[in-house]
């Protein structure tokens, strides 16, 4: 759908805003997931590989 600013209605604006909010929400969840994996998951291989970074970044490590 190609819409110009001149023809945009209030409903269009609200729906665009919801789209943006949903996209931002999913990106935020993805970001938290990455932080959990690199900084918090205690699986031995992950912990050992990320050890120095976890200490330097201030995550609870051991």
């Amino acid at each position, binding site marked *: *759908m*190609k*819409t*110009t*600013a001149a023809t*945009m209605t209030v409903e*269009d*604006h609200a729906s*665009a*805003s919801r*789209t*943006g*909010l*949903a*996209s*931002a*929400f*999913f*990106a*935020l969840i*993805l*970001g*938290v*997931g*990455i*932080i959990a*994996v*690199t*900084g*918090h998951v*205690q699986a031995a291989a992950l912990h050992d*590989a*990320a050890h*120095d*970074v976890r*200490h*330097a*970044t*201030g*995550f*609870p*490590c*051991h």
Partner: protein
Amino acid sequence: MRHTTCVTQLASPATKMFARIVTSALFAGATAGLLIALLQYAFVQPVLLHAELYETGTLVHFGAAPVSAIQDVSGFDPLRDLLSVLFTMLTYCGYAMILVALMGVAEERGADITLRNGMIWGLMGFIAAHLAPAFSLPPEVPGVAAADVLLRQYWWFATVATAAIAMWLIAFHFTMVGVGAAIVLLLLPHIIGAPQPAEFTGPVPTEIGALFASRALSVGLAAWIILGAFCAYFWTKEGEAA
């Protein structure tokens, strides 16, 4: 400016907005993460390696013989150091994903995202994700005594989340109620208290522990300001390209 933003979003599905967030976050996180990894390698890693000499018992603090404060901790460990670079880049990609997503929401609500205020976003990010939890759980040098890791992680996530909401309130709801709520959110985790160890058993000299904490926090501050600037740069650049 405002119209351009709306047209872009209307002309594109939700995936396009998501793609803009993810693309700019990955660029920002990877490039900033690389610089941050170098800062950590130069200033934090030597202190960590020094502490590990005490953690492993190679050196003994208050042992039979005095131990020199100068130790050779230089040396390149390719696998370990490369993994640290990789995980620093990944970690800051995760943070960038959150920061850019929030920048996107703020922009939709009328805020301007620029390179300069990107650095302030970074500063707010540092306060939320690094300084706020460090107030009660300081960056841990290896070997330090600590409470159960899972409990500390729960507390860490709760503290970062409440501090992040507090930063948002201060930035975008600067009213008596907004700032009051922010102060309560910032103080609450520390009044409840972080999980602490029952006994102090750390073998590492306090001088090293203090240097480690201040180096980790200072490099963290620089890291977040770099990250904030890069996030704002790539977010606006991706917006122009769309």
